[in-house]
């Protein structure tokens, strides 16, 4: 039997933790009085959101460190963080929309949290596109670092702006009741498991990015003709 390498072991561990969290969500936490069973989405929805912000903190730090030190490892962590972060943001958005539909009857509401989560998604999708569409190299890493930094700053600014707007233009508000102890415990546990999952995913992705970079160095032999504008017709 093949021994699992350390990444495979970490993945199995993370998945096991998530299954445990799932168990806690469905069997340990009590059913919410007001919202019914659909409220259970909340545990994973908010945990995903927190994990996503954590991922983008990785993008911010990686980018800032790269700009300062030109250390390409930092850039690879940023790339890994952006990809995993977009995944978690997507999960957050989808779960949020399902919940909103059940609780308010509408898939979408322009409140501060949903709006800023959507903005988060758009910015980091943009980050990934910038990387994909630029020639890989130092300048691509620098441009992306700038995008990542602005993105990270923008999200709380948008959140604040929309909150400010909403105080003038009231609409449906997410009710935050005080959580009974069992729910709080479930939530904290789920959040922890989700963060572990995110960390494992980022680490694996970092490894992939490192291997991809190395492949570029080894694989290509010397040639490619650099394309040039055609000589002007005399």
């Amino acid at each position, binding site marked *: 039997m093949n021994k699992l390498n350390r990444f495979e072991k970490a993945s199995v561990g993370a998945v096991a933790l998530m299954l445990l969290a799932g168990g806690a969500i469905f069997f340990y936490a009590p059913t919410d009085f007001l919202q019914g069973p659909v409220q259970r989405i909340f545990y994973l929805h908010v945990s995903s959101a927190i994990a996503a912000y954590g991922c983008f903190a990785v993008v911010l730090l990686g980018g800032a460190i790269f700009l300062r030190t030109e250390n390409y490892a930092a850039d690879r962590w940023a790339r890994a963080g952006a990809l995993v972060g977009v995944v978690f943001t997507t999960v957050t958005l989808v779960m949020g929309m399902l919940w909103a539909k059940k609780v308010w009857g509408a898939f979408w509401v322009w409140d501060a949290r949903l709006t800023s989560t959507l903005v988060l998604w*758009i910015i980091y999708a943009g980050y990934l596109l*910038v990387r994909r569409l630029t020639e890989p190299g130092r300048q691509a890493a620098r441009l992306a670092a700038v995008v990542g930094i*602005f*993105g990270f700053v*923008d999200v709380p600014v*948008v959140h*604040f702006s929309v909150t400010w707007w909403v105080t003038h233009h009231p609409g449906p508000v997410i009710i935050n009741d005080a959580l009974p102890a069992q729910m709080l415990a479930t939530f904290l546990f789920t959040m922890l498991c989700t963060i572990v999952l995110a960390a494992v995913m980022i680490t694996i992705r970092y490894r992939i990015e490192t291997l991809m970079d190395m492949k570029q160095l080894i694989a290509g032999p010397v040639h490619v003709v650099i394309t040039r504008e055609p000589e002007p017709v005399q």
Partner: protein
Amino acid sequence: MNPFRAAIAVARKDLVSEWRTREMVPALAQFVVLALLIGNFGFQIDSRNAPSIAPGILWLALVFAGLIAFGRTFAAEREQSSLEAMLMTPASPVAIFAGKALAASVLLILCEVVLLPALSLFFGTPFSGDLVVAVLLATIGMASLGCLFAAIVARVRARELLLPLLTLPLWIPFIVAGGQAVQSAMGLPGSYDQAIGLLIDFDILFVVLTSLAARFVLDE
């Protein structure tokens, strides 16, 4: 070398070039006209609801005009070679960036000079100094962000797609605060002073950030 001198020289050069070739003015003028037409035929506007709809039309027009005005600052392929020539001088990249942002803002402001009175004229909404101040403050922040991202996407493929994608999320705070300020200036309830205060805060935040980021984006 005095950075202000360099920035003014760059801005002047851009504006003189635009004046002589008049490439952007027709595109921007188009937006002004379209905004007014769509406003009139797309919405059921009467004297009661005009103040609630006109701000929306104003911001739509500004955002799209802004994307064009700022997008073009770094776009032309030729511009890339001349950008490199400018970067080869002792002038700092921040000064060059500031000059280009300034020139692009002037163009957008010229557009606003036409749009704002026209909006008042055709939709009967009040036209005041408050309105002008709100729009100008928003223009500053939007210009610095728009030009920075235009510089970023200039080196990337599919720049027409990427520029709005990257820029609009960063413009949202300006649209929210500016939108409120414009609505207040047109007579709807809401705090004008708070909105202006927010616009100023956002301007300071993003002008500082874009100035710091400019050298990483422009220079190899």
